[in-house]
């Protein structure tokens, strides 16, 4: 990374993250196909929802025929962190027009956010529209091309049940959860492990009386509320860290 904020530099600095998008994008395409959707519908999900891991949740809830409102709410909850990323990065584009701000927000991702925050260390705290927009556009293009590749490969996989492909979504969440825990510095490791154990207990005992299509949302809202309480009660030093 350097102090340059032109499009050429943006392309150079985004390329390493492209491989990350490729892997998870192809995986999403395969999972979408294995879940019984046409390649074009799978591509439409990536083009229109563009929510990374949240799209795996959308697909798994569609397959289980959950109520539309609970799928939309679950997708929103998984992606609610985008509000925080957006709030954090938006001030750097105050000089840009409202239309440009809306366009940057539309294609904002975890990865472009992370690159942007990293870039600030090299530019005396400046970002501009051409640089950030190029990062966003490359990510969007890669995500959708990868999805299409995965969806087309999925066409040639005859019996997904026998191949264990239905486990792809679960394996993805195990991977995303592990990567989240190992990368997240905002919560203490012991608190994160405690939250995972608490979620296991809530999922197990909640299943006794909460219908399956509401279970995840109820567990998430109850779990996060417990998390706030536990953090204030037992991790007083962390209450203002973000």
């Amino acid at each position, binding site marked *: 990374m350097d102090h340059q904020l032109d499009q050429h530099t943006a392309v150079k600095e985004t390329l390493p993250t492209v491989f990350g998008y490729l892997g998870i994008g192809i995986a999403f395409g395969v999972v979408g196909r294995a879940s019984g959707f046409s390649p074009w519908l799978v591509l439409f999900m990536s083009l229109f929802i563009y*929510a990374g891991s949240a799209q795996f*949740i959308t697909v798994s809830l569609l397959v289980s025929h959950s109520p539309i409102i609970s799928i939309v709410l679950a997708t*929103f909850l998984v992606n609610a*962190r985008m509000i925080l990323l957006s709030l954090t990065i938006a001030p750097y584009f105050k000089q840009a027009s409202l239309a440009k701000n809306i366009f940057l927000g539309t294609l904002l991702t975890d990865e472009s956010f992370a690159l942007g925050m990293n870039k600030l260390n090299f530019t005396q705290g400046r970002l501009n529209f051409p640089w950030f927009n190029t990062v966003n556009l490359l990510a969007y293009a890669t995500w959708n091309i990868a999805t299409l590749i995965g969806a087309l490969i999925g066409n040639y996989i005859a019996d997904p049940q026998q191949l264990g492909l239905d486990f792809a979504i679960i394996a993805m969440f195990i*991977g995303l959860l592990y*990567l989240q825990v190992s990368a997240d510095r905002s919560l203490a490791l012991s608190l994160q492990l405690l939250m995972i154990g608490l979620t296991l207990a809530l*999922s197990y005992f909640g299943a006794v009386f909460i*219908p399956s299509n509401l279970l*995840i949302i109820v567990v998430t809202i109850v779990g996060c509320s417990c998390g706030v309480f536990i953090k204030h009660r037992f991790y007083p030093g962390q209450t203002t860290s*973000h």
Partner: protein
Amino acid sequence: MSSFEYTLITIIGCGLITWLSRVLPFILLKKMTLSPAVREFLSFVPIVIMSALWFSNLFTQDLGHLPQLNLENCLASVPTLISAIISKNLLVIVTVGIVSLALIRLI
């Protein structure tokens, strides 16, 4: 409502809500900010929801009773988790998971 309509309406709903959560802060930032309490609540969402999506697949629900263990998914989770710790690579993790469940079903 047909299955295609159900899917399409859901995708449009998910797309709009995701778009709003990305774009509204850019628009509203000067007028309001989230309270620290809300930010703190949201900071737990990724870890809790990803855990919940994993764990809910380890049980077979039986309303009114404690759920049954889904042994296939429980067993396949073990090599998947180990591959996550070793590789830290999503494509590797998913491949190991798929192969693990396929082998378990074969046996």
